[in-house]
C-alpha cells in the first residue's frame, strides 16, 4: 500500500486519530463504556456497509446493532487476539451478518427478488441507500451551511459529491489542475465544517433512524 505524506495543515481538524484506548485495557472497561466506544467508532461505518448491501435503512440499523453486540461479546471473551486488527474483525463480523440477512431475505421473498431482478439496477433519490441514512434535520442544517458558503465552494462540492464527477472532469470544468482542486475541496470542507459548528457534518446524532 502506498504511503502518502500530507502536510499537517491539510489534515482535517475533525479527523481524529483512532482511539487507542479501545485497543488496550478492554478488560478494565465496563460493558457500557466499551459498547459506547465501539458504537462511536464504528456505527456510521456499519450502517453504510449494511445499507449498501441490503438497501434497507432499518435492516442496516439491525446489522449495526448486532455487529456491535457480537464484537463486544468477542472482546469480553478475549476472542480478538490481535486488537490492532479490530477494524478488520468488525468488518468481517458485519459482512457475515449481512450475508445471513441476505440469505433470509432470499428465502422469504424469492418471488419478489426474481421480480426485482428484472427491474433496473440503478436508482435515484428515495432508492439511494446511503444518503437515506442522513435525516431531514441534518440535511437542512448542512443545506443552510452550504447556502452561507461562497458560490464557488458550493458549486465545487456539488460537482464532486452530488454530480459525482471525477476529479479530472471537475478540474477541467473549473479550469484548474487536479492538485489545486484537491486543495480547494479540502478547504471547502473545512469551511463547511466550521459553519455547521465544528462537529461532524453527518455525525452519529444526525443520521436517520437512530434512537
Amino acid at each position: 500500500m502506498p504511503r502518502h505524506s500530507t502536510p499537517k495543515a491539510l489534515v482535517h481538524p475533525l479527523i481524529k486519530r483512532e482511539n487507542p484506548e479501545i485497543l488496550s485495557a478492554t478488560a478494565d472497561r465496563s460493558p457500557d463504556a466499551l459498547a459506547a466506544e465501539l458504537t462511536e467508532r464504528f456505527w456510521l461505518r456499519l450502517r453504510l456497509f449494511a445499507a449498501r448491501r441490503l438497501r434497507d435503512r432499518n435492516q442496516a440499523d439491525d446489522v449495526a446493532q448486532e455487529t456491535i453486540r457480537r464484537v463486544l461479546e468477542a472482546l469480553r471473551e478475549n476472542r480478538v487476539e490481535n486488537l490492532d486488527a479490530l477494524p478488520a474483525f468488525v468488518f468481517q463480523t458485519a459482512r457475515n451478518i449481512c450475508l445471513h440477512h441476505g440469505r433470509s431475505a432470499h428465502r422469504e421473498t424469492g418471488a419478489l427478488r426474481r421480480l426485482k431482478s428484472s427491474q433496473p439496477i440503478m436508482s435515484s433519490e428515495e432508492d439511494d441507500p446511503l444518503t437515506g441514512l442522513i435525516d431531514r434535520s441534518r440535511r437542512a442544517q448542512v443545506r443552510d451551511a452550504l447556502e452561507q458558503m461562497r458560490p464557488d465552494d458550493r458549486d465545487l462540492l456539488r460537482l464532486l459529491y452530488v454530480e459525482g464527477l471525477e476529479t479530472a472532469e471537475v478540474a477541467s470544468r473549473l479550469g484548474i489542475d487536479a492538485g489545486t482542486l484537491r486543495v480547494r475541496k479540502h478547504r471547502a470542507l473545512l469551511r463547511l465544517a466550521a459553519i455547521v459548528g465544528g462537529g461532524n457534518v453527518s455525525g452519529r446524532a444526525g443520521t436517520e433512524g437512530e434512537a
Partner: protein
Amino acid sequence: MTEVIDCPYVENDDLLRQYLAGTVADSDAEEFERHLFACDRCREEVEQGLAVRAALQRPAHGSLLRWRFPSVTFAAAAAAVILVAIGLWQMRSAEPTVPQPVRGSERGITASARLANGAFTTIWQPNPSARQYVVQLFTADGTPLQSVHTSENKATVPLGSIPRGKTIYWKIQALDENGTVIGSSELQRITISR
C-alpha cells in the same frame, strides 16, 4: 512537519465519490469499505460527502420550494431567468424534437436504469401532469448522444456504437402540453460494461 497517512485514497479520491454515488463495482466498494473501517480520514470525507449529497439532492417529497428558492435574492434571480426564458421561447419557432428550456414548477423524477442487450433501458415514476417525457443521454463532456421522446414512463434506447467501458450520463425530463419542463431526474451516470 508532516503527518503520514497510510491511505491510498488521499491522492485518488474518485473511488470515494463513486462509492457515495453508488456507481462503484461491488468488489471495489467492498475493498473500499474494508479500508474505511480502519481509516478515519476516509470516514470523515465519506461523512461530509454524504451529508453534502443528501443536503443538495432534490428531495422526492416535501421542501422542494425551499430548496429551489433558498433566499429572496435567489428567488428573484430565478424568476428573472424564467421570465427571460419564457420570452425567448415564445419568440422562437416550435421544435418538437428538442426539449424546451422553459421550466415551470418543477418536480423531481425518481428514475432508474440498466444496460442490457446493447440498449439503455430506463423506467421512472410518472408525473400526472406530464404529456410526454424526454430521455437524454450525454457523454462525459456533455455532448448529447441520444434524445428520445415518449408518452410512457419507460424507454429503451439502443446504444449503437458507444464503446464498452464508456460512462454515459442520462436524465429524464417531464414536459407538459406546452413543452415546458415540469420535472426532471437527477443527472445520473452508468458505465457500459466491457
